[in-house]
């Protein structure tokens, strides 16, 4: 996503800047001239390269040194312009990357869901935002491809911006493909979890969407139908035909070990399950408080899921893959 928006700006400006290209070209002929006016939305390095290519085509006679200087001038403007941008765009990161909170949330949701043995809460708002964004990107891609075709066909000299549009289209497509993959894979992972522990998940319906709840119900019916047909109906007494006795319900393995990152300072009780044999020992240790470990933000742990479960739900600990 880094410079994509700059590129987009540039393509949009390209149509306008064509009009005063003569003027620009003039400036390019005299690279030493001071006070080159800062164009709005000065291109990033890529766009500068495209511009340079254009000049190469139109002006063979020019010496390489001037070209070089011209390029550097463009780059300098680029940087100054970026600095100005920071004030306007609040979402911009320190390293100049565009920071999209929804995307980051989705990434976190997806990784946690993959790493977590049980179903985690759904986030409908993020999904809506991402879907909107993806739809917008699709339109943008279509638009760009259209533009690259037109420009490629009509004017030979305008080929550079046509190529640029096509390049941006490809990058945007890759970007939206990846986002879409995460979104769909996240939903698929949730679905698989719902299926795997269908009976257990009846207690977790508040973590699901309306669609997932109805899916759980329908899948449960299907499962029960299959079991009835193959096994349960052939059993002699009603008492044995039950499918939902507590000891029969398959629940996720909460004692699985997970990788996680601590987001804010937490205390983790690492005592775990104790047998009767070392209970005395545990009491002794309790007095010294050695079972409670403190972990500062930013530390990475491998820990039994059960012990960080609440912290994960509170968002104090992030699961990693």
């Amino acid at each position: 996503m880094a410079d994509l928006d700059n590129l987009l700006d540039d393509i949009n400006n390209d149509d306008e800047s064509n009009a005063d290209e003569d003027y620009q070209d003039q400036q390019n002929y005299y690279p030493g001239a001071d006070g080159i006016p800062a164009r709005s939305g000065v291109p990033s390095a890529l766009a500068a390269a495209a511009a340079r290519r254009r000049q190469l085509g139109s002006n063979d006679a020019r010496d390489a040194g001037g070209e070089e200087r011209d390029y550097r001038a463009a780059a300098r403007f680029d940087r100054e312009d970026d600095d100005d941008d920071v004030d306007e765009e609040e979402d911009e990161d320190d390293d100049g990357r565009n920071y999209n909170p929804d995307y980051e949330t989705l990434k976190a949701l997806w990784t946690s869901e993959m790493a977590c043995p049980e179903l985690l809460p759904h986030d409908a708002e993020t999904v809506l935002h991402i879907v909107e964004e993806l739809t917008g990107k699709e339109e943008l891609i279509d638009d760009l491809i259209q533009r690259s075709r037109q420009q490629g066909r009509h004017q030979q000299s305008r080929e550079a911006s046509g190529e640029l549009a096509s390049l941006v289209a490809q990058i945007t497509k890759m970007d939206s493909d990846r986002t879409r993959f995460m979104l769909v894979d996240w939903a698929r992972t949730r679905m698989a979890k719902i299926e795997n522990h269908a009976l257990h998940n009846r207690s977790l319906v508040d973590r699901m969407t309306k669609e997932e709840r109805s899916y759980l119900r329908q899948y449960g019916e299907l499962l029960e139908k299959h079991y009835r047909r193959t096994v349960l109906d052939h059993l002699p007494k009603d008492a044995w035909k039950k499918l939902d006795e507590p000891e029969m319900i398959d629940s996720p393995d909460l004692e699985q070990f997970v990788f996680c990152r601590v987001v804010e300072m937490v205390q983790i009780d690492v005592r775990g399950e104790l047998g009767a044999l070392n209970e005395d020992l545990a009491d002794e240790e309790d007095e010294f408080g050695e079972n409670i470990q403190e972990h500062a933000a930013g530390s990475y742990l491998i820990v039994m899921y059960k012990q960080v479960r609440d912290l994960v739900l509170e968002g104090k600990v992030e699961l990693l893959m």
Partner: protein
Amino acid sequence: MNYGQRGRELLLDLKRSDWLPPYNEDCVRAVLQEINSHTEELTVLVRASNRIAGGGPTSSSSSAPPPGPAIEDRPSLILHDVSIRRNKRCLLAYHAHRIDKLRSLRWETGMLPPGLKFVLSESEVDYFNEYDKLASRHGLSGPMQMYDWTADQYPPEENLVQVRVVRDGLGKVETEYCGTVELEVGSTHYLPRGDVEHLIRSGALVQLSGEESF
């Protein structure tokens, strides 16, 4: 009779096979039969102990035995009950494992390959079809309905992929921005991934990677 042996046999069957063993209907029936014979013996025992409890002397109220079957009958009652539960558990585990495999098959191929049908029971074929319908319907509900849920099993790496055609008679494929492409056996193409992904998954195209593609 070797009690409990058949249930174990079923599960070992699953463990020994690569994907799924043919549905072992005989064994399933034998286990169900075993459950039935346990029940019969259990009924006989319960009746007998009830008769004794009913006809026994009730005079000494202070030292009356606790209600229920006599103490010497209890071990066999419990044993029969536990055997029934164990057999039931084996059966359910056998079927559960099989439908787990069927579900992942649905996500991998999207349809039931004809060659695999003979290893499944009738009920399992029905299950597969219904599951397929159910899962597709779930994909079409909610805000993510415009996406193909079965596409992209793995993270996408490139927009365009190099593929070789290995199946006959695919005809032409319509692509998003490469026009229409004729897919002849043995030819290789460089096509948008989204347009040919379903063909790669069904095995009609082979994706080439690295050295191979040049």
